[in-house]
């Protein structure tokens, strides 16, 4: 921002009247309306007006002369440095109060700040205590280990190993907290906990619904129509299951108590499978077969 005296072409000692007449003269010469061919005239005129707004006002001119406001009329920040400006400077060392803050004080302040003993912050060599950090781990389990429970050993960053007991039926995303197995505490602080987040891998045969285990069991046409006794896998090993006659697709058979230990069941969903190749006898029979219980399997699918 240029000096307003300079803009108006006057001296600091000139009278108010002299400044006014200098302004009038310049304003007439640079007014944008009398200078239609000079685009820069508008800018010059604005400068002149601003300069006169400052110097034409007795008070503002006086303040500007004293350096209290700048050419734009803004307050000038006081130039004196305050003592606080030196609070970080190395030179302040000599003004340091030597009694204010020894190591013991620092520890007692921290012991209080971190809840190491409310109301007992009188110092006296209290040791700083803080609970240890929780340690976070991730563990991916086979489906069967997750539903049946197991024990896994994980290595911790500090070289220790940690045996994690997986309770039966742990689910994907569950966090197992092992109290006191995290990072050691500071001072008298308790150690943190180990938090093990479990991921459960899917299984090709089984899947879970809550505490129940579901399995799809393919059966032949004969087994579905005539019934059979079959071996079925469960999460604890194969068991024998009796299929009643006339078990169609979607029949759900329950194996009581074969789900998550002590809580769930296993359900077996039957999937009758047609023979893989031509069966002329079967086709011949079906051509003449009149069902005793006719059914419309697409009932209820009308979209009206």
């Amino acid at each position, binding site marked *: 921002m240029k000096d307003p005296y300079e803009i108006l072409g006057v001296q600091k000692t000139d009278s108010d009247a002299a400044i006014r007449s200098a302004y009038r003269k310049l304003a007439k010469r640079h007014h944008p309306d009398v200078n239609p061919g000079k685009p820069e005239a508008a800018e010059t005129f604005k400068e002149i007006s601003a300069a006169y707004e400052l110097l034409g006002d007795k008070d503002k001119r006086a303040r500007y002369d004293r350096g209290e406001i700048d050419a734009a009329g803004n307050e000038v920040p006081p130039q004196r*440095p*305050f*003592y606080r*400006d030196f609070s970080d400077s190395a*030179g302040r060392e000599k*003004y340091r109060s030597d009694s*204010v*803050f020894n190591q013991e004080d*620092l520890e007692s302040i921290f012991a209080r700040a971190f*809840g190491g003993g409310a109301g007992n912050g009188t110092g006296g060599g209290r040791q700083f205590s803080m609970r240890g950090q929780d340690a976070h781990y991730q563990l991916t389990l086979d489906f069967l280990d997750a539903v049946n429970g197991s024990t896994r050993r994980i290595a911790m960053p500090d070289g220790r190993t940690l045996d994690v007991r997986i309770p039966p039926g742990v689910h994907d995303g569950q966090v197992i907290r092992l109290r006191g197995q995290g990072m050691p505490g500071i001072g008298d602080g308790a150690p943190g906990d180990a938090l093990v987040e479990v991921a459960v891998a899917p299984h090709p045969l089984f899947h879970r619904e809550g505490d129940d285990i579901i399995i799809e069991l393919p059966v032949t046409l004969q087994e579905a129509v005539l019934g059979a006794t079959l071996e079925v896998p469960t999460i604890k090993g194969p068991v024998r299951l009796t299929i009643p006659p006339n078990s169609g697709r979607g029949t759900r058979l329950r194996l009581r108590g074969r789900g998550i230990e002590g809580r769930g069941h296993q359900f077996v969903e039957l999937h009758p499978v047609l023979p893989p190749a031509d069966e002329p006898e079967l086709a011949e029979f079906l051509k003449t077969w009149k069902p005793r219980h006719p059914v419309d399997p697409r009932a209820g699918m009308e979209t009206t």
Partner: protein
Amino acid sequence: MDVTAVTALFADLTQVELVTWVERGWVIPDAAESGFEFHAIDVARVRLIHDLRRDMDLGEDAIPLVLSLLDQVYDLRGQLKAVLRAVEAQPADVRSAILAVMGRGG
């Protein structure tokens, strides 16, 4: 800056009074051949004492107390900044753990 130069900054500070402040230990300029050498921080401290005595009309007895308390505040702020720098240097989970504990109130 010597005593003369410092007093010249004020309309109403005599060299005698300034020397008194030095003798009482309120300001600690360096010793120079021709008396005292005031550094920028010392001049700022003189201005502070001047403000306290003139603008705030504090009694002479109160000045050492006020200066001592102010110095303690600046020391504490320095210590606190050191602590904050130490906290900032920690991993994010440690920082948030510290903040969580502080938020509970010591």
